[in-house]
Every structure is written in structure tokens, then in C-alpha cells.
């Protein structure tokens, strides 16, 4: 015999009604299901409105003004699209967007290739594979603040382990290996750290993809005498592709707004070599106090990420449907 879920719900409601003082009971009984549903989600909606939606609309409003947070007494004027025009025509902002694109491209490429390779290895069960999996996952469990600080020491030319290792392998004196102080090497120093930290994350998602491929497909391929290489390109990669794309999406969004690691390692320097968009935005908003202009920049970034992510999700859905 099965009992309808409604019966349980009704009994529970009756019990609740019995335990509730009479006037409140009457009021609750008078509420529709829809009203009760709203009652439950109202706190979440209120919180979202207060900390997400309101600031977004407020930022949109500010982006059309000359408001400066450090001049509370100054008159706030409407400047129309002036801030947007300034942001889109500012060569420094375009330079920071280029730096961001460079950073996003290389980190995603390296993390995807290495992450997938690691997942492929880990997927083949071998002795102690659980131990190695845990070990590989450690970097992503650390706080970015910790990672940034200890890599700064590792990169230190005079006492850093990284400089010693490179010097040992190449014979270049340690004092000449200035990862964070060199215009050419500083962007790569950040890419190395981000790749070190987040490749395990990509590996985990890829591993989930690889483990979702049913064994019988490989068995059928074996029967058809397909080579390992053929199996990899015709079964493994296409079936894991949605997962890989998902990992790329997550890392892409994260790295587009990367701030903490860059701030800790180089602070955007040397000069403006590693000044990614989020660092420029922070400087504009909280150091130069150009609140209106920085709001416009934030909206431009938001639209860019939102637009690109939407296009990407559509592509992802198409791949999944194949």
C-alpha cells in the first residue's frame, strides 16, 4: 500500500495548525499556496535585491553621472554617454583588456591541456591513484592569498626556490631570473601560478566527463579493432567535450575577473605590464575615485562577460545535443 505525499503534507499541515494559536491559524489557512511559496522565497529575493540587483542598477545609474565617492558634497551631474565614450576610447583600458585576454587565453589553454591529460592518467586506475589524486588537488584547496604570497617568495631572485631551480637547469645566475620584475616574464609568472593552482579543478571536471563514458562503447570499439588513438579521438574526446567546455567556461569567467593573484604577485606591475581589467577598475574606482567612469567600465565588463558567456553556453548546448 502506498500513501499519497499529499496525505503526509495534509497531516503535517493539520499538526502545524493545531500547534499554532487560533488567529494565526486562520490567517495561514487564508493564504493561497502561491502566497506561501512567495513567503518562503521572499527573504532570498529581498537579499538578492539588496546585495545584487540594487547595486547593479545603482551602478548603471552612476555610470551616466560624474559622481565621485570622495566628493560627497559635489554636485552630481548627468554626463549622458560621456563615461562610456571615455572608457571605450581610453588606450589604457584597451591595454588592460589586451592583458586580460592574453592572461585568459594562456591560462585556459594550459589548464585545459594539462588538466585533461592528468584526468586521462588518473582515470586509468593504478596503484595509489587515490593518493595522487588528493595530492594533485591540494593547490586548488589553498587560499589565493596564501598562494600569491608564497609564490612571491618562490619567485624571489635571491632566495627563491624557483630561481634556484631555473638556475640549476639553465646555468643562468639566480640574480638574473627576475620573474616578477621583468616586463617579459611577469605575465608568465602569473600564468604559471594560476595554472598550478587551477589545473586540478579542470582535471576534476574532465575526470567526471571521462568517468561518464560507458565502458561498452570502448568494448564495441575493441571488437571493431579500433586503435587506442582512434578510440581517443572518436570516443573519449567527443564524449568528454561538454565537460571540457564547461571547465573552460568556469575558468574563463573566473580569470576574466582575476584580481587577487595579480594584486598579490605584481600589483599590476612592472609598470602596467600585468594590469588586468579588474586591477584597472579597482584603481579607477577606489584610488582615483572616478566612481561614475569606473561604473561605466564595470558595466562594459559585465556586458562583455555576459555576452561571451551566453554565446559560449549556446555552443555548449549544441555540442551536448550532438
Amino acid at each position: 500500500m502506498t500513501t499519497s505525499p499529499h496525505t503526509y503534507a495534509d497531516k503535517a499541515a493539520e499538526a502545524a495548525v493545531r500547534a499554532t494559536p487560533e488567529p494565526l491559524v486562520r490567517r495561514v489557512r487564508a493564504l493561497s499556496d502561491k502566497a506561501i511559496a512567495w513567503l518562503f522565497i521572499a527573504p532570498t529575493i529581498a537579499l538578492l535585491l539588496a546585495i545584487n540587483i540594487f547595486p547593479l542598477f545603482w551602478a548603471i545609474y552612476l555610470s551616466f553621472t560624474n559622481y565621485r565617492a570622495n566628493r560627497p558634497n559635489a554636485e552630481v551631474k548627468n554626463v549622458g554617454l560621456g563615461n562610456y565614450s571615455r572608457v571605450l576610447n581610453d588606450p589604457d583600458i584597451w591595454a588592460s583588456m589586451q592583458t586580460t585576454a592574453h592572461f585568459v587565453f594562456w591560462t585556459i589553454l594550459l589548464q585545459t591541456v594539462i588538466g585533461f591529460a592528468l584526468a586521462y592518467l588518473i582515470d586509468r586506475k593504478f596503484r595509489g591513484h587515490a593518493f595522487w589524486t588528493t595530492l594533485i588537488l591540494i593547490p586548488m584547496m589553498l587560499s589565493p592569498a596564501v598562494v600569491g604570497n608564497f609564490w612571491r617568495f618562490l619567485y624571489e631572485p635571491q632566495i627563491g626556490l624557483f630561481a634556484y631551480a631555473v638556475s640549476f637547469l639553465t646555468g643562468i645566475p639566480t640574480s638574473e631570473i627576475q620573474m616578477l620584475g621583468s616586463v617579459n616574464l611577469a605575465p608568465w609568472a602569473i600564468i604559471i601560478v594560476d595554472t598550478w593552482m587551477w589545473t586540478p579543478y579542470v582535471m576534476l571536471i574532465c575526470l567526471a566527463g571521462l568517468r561518464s563514458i560507458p565502458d561498452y562503447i570502448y568494448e564495441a570499439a575493441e571488437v571493431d579493432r579500433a586503435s587506442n588513438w582512434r578510440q581517443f579521438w572518436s570516443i573519449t574526446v567527443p564524449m568528454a567535450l561538454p565537460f571540457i567546455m564547461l571547465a573552460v567556461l568556469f575558468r574563463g569567467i573566473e580569470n576574466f575577473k582575476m584580481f587577487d593573484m595579480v594584486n598579490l604577485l605584481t600589483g599590476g606591475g612592472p609598470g602596467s605590464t600585468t594590469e588586468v581589467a579588474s586591477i584597472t577598475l579597482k584603481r579607477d574606482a577606489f584610488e582615483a575615485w572616478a566612481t561614475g567612469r569606473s561604473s561605466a567600465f564595470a558595466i562594459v565588463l559585465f556586458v562583455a562577460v555576459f555576452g561571451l558567456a551566453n554565446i559560449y553556453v549556446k555552443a555548449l548546448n549544441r555540442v551536448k545535443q550532438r
Partner: protein
Amino acid sequence: MLKQWIPLLGATAVCALMSAPQAAKAEQLTLCWAAWDPANALVELSKDFTTKTGIDMKFEFVPWTSYADRFLNELNSRGKLCDLIIGDSQWVGGAAENGHYVKLNDFFAKEGISMDDFVPATVVGYSEWPKNTPNYWALPAMGDVVGWTYRKDWFERPEIQKEFKAKYGWDLAAPKTYDQLKQIAEFFQKREIDGKTVYGASIYTERGSEGITMGVTNVLYDWGFMYENPKKPYDMQGYVNSPDAVKGLEFYKSLYDCCTPPGASNVYMVESADAFKSGQVAMQMNFAFTWPGLYKDEKVGGDRIGFFPNPAEKYHFAQLGGQGISVVSYSDKRDAALQYIKWFAQPDVQAKWWQFGGYSCLKAVVDAPDFKTSQPYAPAFLESMAIVKDFWAEPSYAELLQAMQKRVHDYVVAGKGTAKEALDGLEKDWTEIFEEDGKI
């Protein structure tokens, strides 16, 4: 029912009666400042204030790298966290115009505190807005200036002296000019001393807050850089980017390229002091507040360290540091905060302030006959305070500073463009900022 409540009500009433006098007595003031050695000295000093007035002091100290961000945010949001604030010298314009600080003229007049009793440069730098007018927003609290320390023990070694003289033709000693400083720095760069490779000099190169600006201005001023036309305010063309200023900037880059330790691309106060303390460098640029700590250092202090003011070139200036103490206008404890300022201005408190490791700005302290001999760094401090010059203290100081940080760092550390392009760009940025402010 009432019987159950009576004991509880009684106990509450007794507690309330017992705590009432305590609550009235336990007034507390919060003083906001940067987290550094002088702040610790102020904590010690302020115990005397608590003893005398019964007002507790609470301190909110923030590291230098986030000091401006944190407290300017607090002021701009009209926060009540700080009753008293020791704000950077460049904040005075913005804080005065935006109503963050209480104007102290009436209070000074009532309490008989005269600005004539303080070192003039500190009054202009820390208290006045508009500059050179008798409108006071702070009491000079912590005199500070960029100067230099050097490894006296290395300089005095006979073999080093002999080699230096043979190479440069003059006796190795604390440099008087920047040319001399560079020669010394070159001489020590990558030299083996006691089996360790050492380097010439540590200079400010920090990008994130104000570091490289506070460093490069020491050189720029000496070469002839000026913020504006002395006869026409905010006219900067040919002053900020004069040929002499360009040469000064080129010099700073050459000093960075030739004579700093490897990886010194983001150095400010802490990093510079660390480079000196770890025995990496022969000379170090730093604010005078670091000198007492360095002098006490077991490895490099005592007889091993010497102090000298910023060297001269065509002119002789040094970058002003330091701060004044102000009452925050949003504080609910304004009277108690003013009471603290009155106490702090007293000559005996100021004398103790110097003894504890703070730098007093009171003439009675610094002009005292025994001041020069009171500490080994006192003469260099006095000499430096006589040649100070400060960055813009305009309400838009943050934007002006950020523009300079970017332009100078791009050229000096990243090697982007030329010195002329950097200063031309800076002049353009500053002009735009003043135009937006309606000053031009």
C-alpha cells in the same frame, strides 16, 4: 507570577546602579593611523592621557599599503569609526573641502595653541588648507621626511676606502650630491663583502600605493622639477616636464637600472628597510621614521649605520612625509577628541614623544640645544626637515598621485617610452584632472 519577577528586577536594578558611574567614566576615543613603529610609540605615550583624563584610547592601525584606501573610504562614507585621525599630509585639502576634518582655528585660539610654535614646513604641510593661509585642520603630529641610511662600517673599511679613492678620486663618505651617491652605489653593486654579494642602493619603486612617487620626487626636485608655475597656479607646461625634470627622471631610472638589488621592482618602506637590515645594500632611501628601529637593529644598527639627508644636485630638497592629527567631524566625541589634541600639544608630551620614537614637530623640542646630540639620526632629520617639499595636497590628490605612479613606474621600472614622454603624459593627465575639478 509577580513574585518570580521581583528578584530578577531587583538584580537588574542593582547591576544598572553599579554600572552607571562606570559607563559615564569609561569614555573611549578611537585614534586611526598607519601600523608602523611610531604608532606603537603613540600607544605608550597615550597611556599618560588616559591616566590624566580617564578617557580610554582605542587604536585602529592599518598597514601602509591599505592605509589610504581604508581611511579615505571611512571618511568618504562619513563613518564614525575614528574620533581622531592621523591622516597623510596630502589628504588635508580633500578632508577640509569635503568637511571630514574639524577646523581647529577657534580651538587653537581658545587653548592658546600657536602654530608659530611648530616647525613652519610641518604647519604648511600637515595643517593648512589652502596652503600658506592660516586655516588649520590638523596639529602637526609626526614629522617625517625621506632621507638615507648607509653602512658606515663598510664605508670605513680601509681596503674599501683605498679602492674607492683609486677609482673615483675622492674619499668615500656619505654623499653630498646625487652624482656622488650614484658613484658609491655603482662601486658597491655586486661587490663581495664578508663572502656575500651586496648591492648599491635600495630606492622606492612601489607601484600600488605611493611608493615610486615618494622616491622619484626626491630626485626630480633636485633637478628642477616644479609642480606648477609659481606665478600662475595649475600652469604645469614646462614645469612638470621641463628639460631638467626629464634629466632627473632619467637619472632615477639609471640609478634603478645600475645599482639596485635584483627583483627590487616593487619596493617601498618595509622592503627598503628589509634590504638594509638583511645586509643587501650599502645605502637605503627611506622615511626618517625607520631610523630609530634601524639604529637599534642588532645586525646593522649602532656603529654600523650612518644617516644623511637627501643629496643635492642643482637644487636641494627632500620629499616631505609625516602627518597631522585631526578631529573627525563625524565623531560623536568631539570634545574628548579636542581634549586629546590639547594634551598632545603640550611641550612635555612632545618631548616624551621624541624620546619614545615619534618625531615631534614642536620647535621647543627640535630647537632644544641637546636635540642634535640626543640621537645619532637627529642632525640628519633636522637638516632634512629644513629642505622639505610635498606632493599636491589638492582634493584630487588621489587621482594626481595615481597618474604619477603609473607614468613614472611605466618608464622607470618597465622601461616603457622615454622620460620626456612620461612627464609630458603626466602633465597632460594632471591638466585633465584640474580641468575636471574646474581649477583651470
